[in-house]
């Protein structure tokens, strides 16, 4: 039985600390947005979780491809870990977005293309888990999982492009200054600090959780092997 690596323990502590700092920066340090008020503070974590959510889906699609080429179960574990952690983060993104949308758009949810895409992406990865659950052979499970993350990884950006082409009310905060009417805003320097720190903090937390999940995956595999040994 491997013991927990020290680096991981340090990373655990670091995650808690950066999360604390990010929360402080978002809730206290960053200036209150003029039009929307305090609710705008959700934005820092909203984008932070969305960023790692999408990062994880990208990692999952890539490790899926690597798995299909190398057939090394390590990459399958990587893929599952990434999808699992990201699905959770992405869910948080959607919930936080809803909390912001209630006062800003006066509704929890609209069928705006970008929100729809987020929901669809989330559903793709829920479907991914259902697919894996239905297959007993681990090798086949890994192959199908890899194929599906690849399909999902390609389909999600296309859906995302479709939204950019059709009308959207989701504010584009970065790189588009004409969005003020939709709840967009210009960031001041302090806001930017809080924003980029939130991105950094969630990246650290993401790596930490990924690491834990990878270890868990390795243990799972070991347990399965031991079970096989016992039954023989």
């Amino acid at each position: 039985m491997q013991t927990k690596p020290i680096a991981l323990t340090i990373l655990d502590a670091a995650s808690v600390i950066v999360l604390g700092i990010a929360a402080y920066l978002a809730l206290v340090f960053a200036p209150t947005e003029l039009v929307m008020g305090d609710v705008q503070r959700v934005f820092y974590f909203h984008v932070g979780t969305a960023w790692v959510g999408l990062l994880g889906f990208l990692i999952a699609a890539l490790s899926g491809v690597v798995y299909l080429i190398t057939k090394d179960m390590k990459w399958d574990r990587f893929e599952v870990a990434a999808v699992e952690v990201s699905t959770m983060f992405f869910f948080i993104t959607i919930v936080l977005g809803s909390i912001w949308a209630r006062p800003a758009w006066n509704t929890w949810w609209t069928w705006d293309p970008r929100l729809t895409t987020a929901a669809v992406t989330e559903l793709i990865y829920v479907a991914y888990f259902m697919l894996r659950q239905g297959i007993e052979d681990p090798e086949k499970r890994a192959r199908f999982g890899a194929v599906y993350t690849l399909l999902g990884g390609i389909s999600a950006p296309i859906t995302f492009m479709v939204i950019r082409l059709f009308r959207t009310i989701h504010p584009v905060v970065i790189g588009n200054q004409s969005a003020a009417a939709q709840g967009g805003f210009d960031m001041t320097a302090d806001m930017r600090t809080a924003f980029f720190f939130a991105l950094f903090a969630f990246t650290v937390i993401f790596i930490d959780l990924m690491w834990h999940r990878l270890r868990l995956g390795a243990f799972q595999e070991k347990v399965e092997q031991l079970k096989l040994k016992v039954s023989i």
Partner: protein
Amino acid sequence: MMAVVQKDLAAEFRSRELLSAMLVFSLLVILIFNFALELDIKTRQSVTAGVLWTTFAFAGTLGLNRSMAVEKDRGCMDGLLLAPVDRAAIYFGKAISNLAFMLIVEAIVLPVYSMLYNVNLFQAGLLGVILLGSIGYTAVGTLLAAMSVQTRTRDVLLPILLFPVAIPVLLASVKASGGLLDGAEFSEILTPLNILIVYDVIFIAVAYMVFDFVVEE
């Protein structure tokens, strides 16, 4: 490849179980929409494209499920895989026969819908959009159906896997068909049309590349 297509079509024309099921099913879906949406003249204008594509998508999953389940149940898939041909030929054969079934169903649903609701659906542009949309839908659908028949939950899983991945194609198809039915300019529907073509090309290529991994034992 053409042998697979021929085999599927011949089997189907002899038994007609799949086509008739898809047809009756899609007519029922249209009927249900009629009650659910109260398709009077005003709403009809705006929802026709949506109703049509929902019907096609549902009927499509029915067909995809069935065509792969037949291969699996009677052990025909193993026979196909043993045949000394490229796996890609099996994929394209399956995809083309699935596409043929879907197009046949559409070819019957369209005039029925036109007649029942007094909308003229026979425009060259619309038929083109339907063809492009069906190609994209069956390209992904065939691949995912090959996956889902090998799982424990089988038929139940296919729509769950397929619908989220096929959203871009359905969305673009509905937009393009809706635009055409409203008599929009060609430049307006160019965007969804481009998306459809891009989707078709990308997903045919991807499905072709990964189909090997899905059927290998």
